[in-house]
């Protein structure tokens, strides 16, 4: 399936529209803030439209994962090709984009969150131009990761996000922003180095025979890496169940675990969230964390099915620990944002547990949870942002009785809260359900312990609601305005999705069902 707009593939459009926006933003004069904002809004808005088109035209039945033929909207151009010289085979790096059931939902999520992020960035007044330029660059990086099928490209997009994020936290963040920014940077950078090394090891272990010339070509093509037949004899990562393959898996896993973030690689997250400005928190929790689990599914699982199976208990256990640990830590926080940050750790633990089940329910649940959590935390961070804008406070004990002051806002925020709590009828429940169902099939006790997390979650969420929204209003907070239309605008699409997917998740699930089923079979078949 191909879809071209002006002769350029839709995926290229959706990835690079923000870059176009960034260039326009950079060319606009500093003073013209509204033009800058509108440019960003239009660029991300176009992305949403394109995501809608992709959603409409996406063929639900195609498998993807390891089969190049069944990827959709594919674009493949030779990017860097160096002809063979006597001592080394041909080098080939492709500009290779394509999506399957695994990525399509993430694309929709990214475009949506990016758009909403722009709306919630509207009241940022400091260095507007720089802010939106970096923001748009960040969006391109995120989107790129989800569509890249060439490891090299994947890596570039992956690392492109690093610097904008560093600056966005570090320049527009809270009082301890530098600390948070550098911590984020270092963590992710460490992961990046691990991924780089693994990527190179893979590159040199994989060579496919070019049907046209008969040459053996080393390649960064992720799909080629999934085929055991493509591994060269004696390559570092050739074979099955070798120590090096385990090491490589682990290196990648740590990289992704940092992004997810999985216990014990999570400590950057609370700091980053607390310090980041609201829209960046939204992006961070809404999309960036998903990159980790997406990477696991896109790269770790299909390329190293043997190592995946070998380490899967370990992974599930880490998921379990994250769920419980994150929930307890969330309960212990006094800071609203920190609480949500820890709840993200807990909820992303569910994703990990779900995908670690290595069965279709679990995977579907996990991926759906990625999407749902993205939407839910976005709502939560936006709610904090709304309060913070009005009061400049984030401490849970600083509030009270907001429900009487701002009933509309409270209603919206509560829906987000309840969704986070896993209330049936809202989307969080559906994905948690399938994640746990899948996990339970694979690991009884781990799952049972994990499910206790939902009790703790209920505990801290309700406690938060009680402290912030219920009770009597403190004297200082009696003059709060209820939310403005702009703020409503950023909540509404998310809330609608929360309810819609809670009641009828099938449109989301059918997007990925066949791909993920195929992935499960693929792993259990040892990559055959």
């Amino acid at each position: 399936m191909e879809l071209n707009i002006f002769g350029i593939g839709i995926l290229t459009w959706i990835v690079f529209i923000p870059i176009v926006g960034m260039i326009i933003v950079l060319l606009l004069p500093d003073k013209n803030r509204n033009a800058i904002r509108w440019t960003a809004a239009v660029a991300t808005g176009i992305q949403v439209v394109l995501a809608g088109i992709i959603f409409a035209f996406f063929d639900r039945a195609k498998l993807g994962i390891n089969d190049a033929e069944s990827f959709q909207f594919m674009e493949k151009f030779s990017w860097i090709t160096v002809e063979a010289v006597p001592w080394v085979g041909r080098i080939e790096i492709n500009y290779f984009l394509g999506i399957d059931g695994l990525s399509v939902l993430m694309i929709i999520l990214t475009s949506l969150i990016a758009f909403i992020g722009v709306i919630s960035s509207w009241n940022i007044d400091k260095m507007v131009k720089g802010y939106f330029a970096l923001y748009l660059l960040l969006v391109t990086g995120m989107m790129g990761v989800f569509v890249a099928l060439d490891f090299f490209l994947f890596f570039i997009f992956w690392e492109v996000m690093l610097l904008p994020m560093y600056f966005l936290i570090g320049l527009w963040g809270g009082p301890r922003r530098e600390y948070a920014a550098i911590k984020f940077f270092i963590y992710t950078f460490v992961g990046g180095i691990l991924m780089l090394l693994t990527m190179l090891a893979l590159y040199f272990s994989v060579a496919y025979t070019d049907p046209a010339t008969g040459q053996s070509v080393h390649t960064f093509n992720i799909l080629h890496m999934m085929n055991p037949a493509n591994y060269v004899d004696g390559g570092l990562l050739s074979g099955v169940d070798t120590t090096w393959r385990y090491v490589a898996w682990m290196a990648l896993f740590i990289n992704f675990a940092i992004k997810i973030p999985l216990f014990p690689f999570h400590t950057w997250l609370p700091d980053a969230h607390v310090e980041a400005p609201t829209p960046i928190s939204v992006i961070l929790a809404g999309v960036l964390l998903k990159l980790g689990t997406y990477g696991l599914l896109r790269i770790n699982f299909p390329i190293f099915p043997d190592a995946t199976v070998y380490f899967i208990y370990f992974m599930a256990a880490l998921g379990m620990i994250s769920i419980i640990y994150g929930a307890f830590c969330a309960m212990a926080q006094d800071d609203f944002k920190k609480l949500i940050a820890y709840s993200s750790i807990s909820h992303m633990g569910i994703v990990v547990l779900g995908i670690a089940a290595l069965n279709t329910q679990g995977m579907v649940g996990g991926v759906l949870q990625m999407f749902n959590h993205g939407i839910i935390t976005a709502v939560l961070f936006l709610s904090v942002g709304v309060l913070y804008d009005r009061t400049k406070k984030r401490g849970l004990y600083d509030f009270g009785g907001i429900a009487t002051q701002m009933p509309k806002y409270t209603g919206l925020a509560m829906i987000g809260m309840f969704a986070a709590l896993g209330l049936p009828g809202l989307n969080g429940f559906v994905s948690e359900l399938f994640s746990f169902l899948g996990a339970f099939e694979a690991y009884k006790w781990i799952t049972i312990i994990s499910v206790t997390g939902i009790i703790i979650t209920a505990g801290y969420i309700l406690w938060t609601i009680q402290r912030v929204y219920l009770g009597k209003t403190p004297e200082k907070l009696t003059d709060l305005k209820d939310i403005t239309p702009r703020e409503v605008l950023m909540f509404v699409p998310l809330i609608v999705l929360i309810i819609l997917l809670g009641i009828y998740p099938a449109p989301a699930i059918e997007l990925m069902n066949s791909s993920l089923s195929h992935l499960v079979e693929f792993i259990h078949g040892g990559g055959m």
Partner: protein
Amino acid sequence: MVENTLYSISLYLPEIVLVVTLCIIIVADLVLKNKEQVIAWIMLSGLATAGFFVIIQAGTVENIFFGMAALDPFATFFKVLLIITGIFVVLFSIKNRELEGYSSRMGEYYMLFTGMMLGMLMMAGATNLLLMFLALEIASISSYVLAGFTKRSLRSSEAAMKYIIYGAVSSGVMLYGISLLIGVTAATDIYAINDAISAGVEQTMMLNISVLMILVGLGFKIAVVPFHFWAPDVYEGAPITIAALLAVASKIAAFAMLIRLFSVSFIDASGLSATGTWSSVEGIHWNLLLGGMAALTMIVGNLTALRQDNIKRMLAYSSIAHAGYILIGLVIMSSEGLTSIMIYLFIYLFMNLGAFYVAMLFMNKAGTESIEEYKGLGHRAPLAGVALTIFLVSLTGLPPTGGFVAKLYIFGAAISAGWIWLVAVAGITTIISLFYYIRVVRNMYFFKPDEDAGRIEFDTLSKAILIALLVPVLLTGLYFQPVLEFARNSMLMFGF
């Protein structure tokens, strides 16, 4: 004999152009008044002409001057790099405020500079131990003086003195090693040496000792641990243009020589397989030695850089560290490794020069070399700030900058050759390097400039130079095929 000489001369045009340039500068220095700019432009055009001839001669594979030197793609590659560096540094010199107080001496400055360029170009092509040593000395002696060019400065004088003592001893030791090598192989030509070694040398111990001693001299030039001590002091003391020249050009030339010497002399010619991997002469594990040195260099360079506050000194340690990364390519002992060295050097040239250049601009305008005092500079000089950020990011090795591609190739080559531990060290030290690079960025941006400190404006030429450095750094990050092909095609060395 004469024909050969004449023919050789026709193939040695770039060097000859430089000699001619040197002479013109001497004359111009005597004749002209207000000569600074003119001489700079004379030198620029000399370099450009030399570059022109280099490019014209590209592709030729010839042994010239009775085996003293070679003209081959390998040499061409390095000459191109050297001339680019030279051109940039001349441009820097025009802009450098440090040199303003020495206008009467700028003639000498450019003479020595030209001499140094000449020496370095000769280093890239030399295939005879004598010429190698001689070329090295030409480059060194000019650089000793250049390092002390700003005579009024105590630091500069000290730097020159330390440099020359260190250099003299190192070259002395190297010469001793050369004498032993010549004694062992009874040859001065590196191909003849290889023949002798391949035929089987009984005096293995002697050979080892001689190579070690030669390494002291080359290691000094490249500034690899443990022969690096001079570098930070000299970089800090020398005028920043010269520091840049030493950090980039000097290193490139020395690498050219080192690679040629090692890959021609000390390998088992019979073992040169079709895959491009080669092995050193039996019983000698040069790669292990070099690997150890590379690892040490990366560790020491990066760790020490952490604590520096002077930007020149920090860049000195960073360039030491980079020498470590580059050395990995040699450790691998394969054409792949050498290709990656060449790619690395190509990119390193732009990013490191860029960093030095912005440091110089800041020194010109803000009058500081201290990283601590960079606070808020990013807001005051947006273009330079962004540029420095990109250069530093590239030095760190993050995509989508050239530095990433450079590291990618080095790491990749090492992994494919199975040097996992070395890559691990490289990876860890890369992470460490992030700290000191990012610290500069953080100081530039995360602080508000003083209220009264206004914006820093630069003139068009300064900006043009900056852009000229910036574009390749970004471009090579995204589309590096030309560099890649250039490097691969330049792998051809005379006789190999």
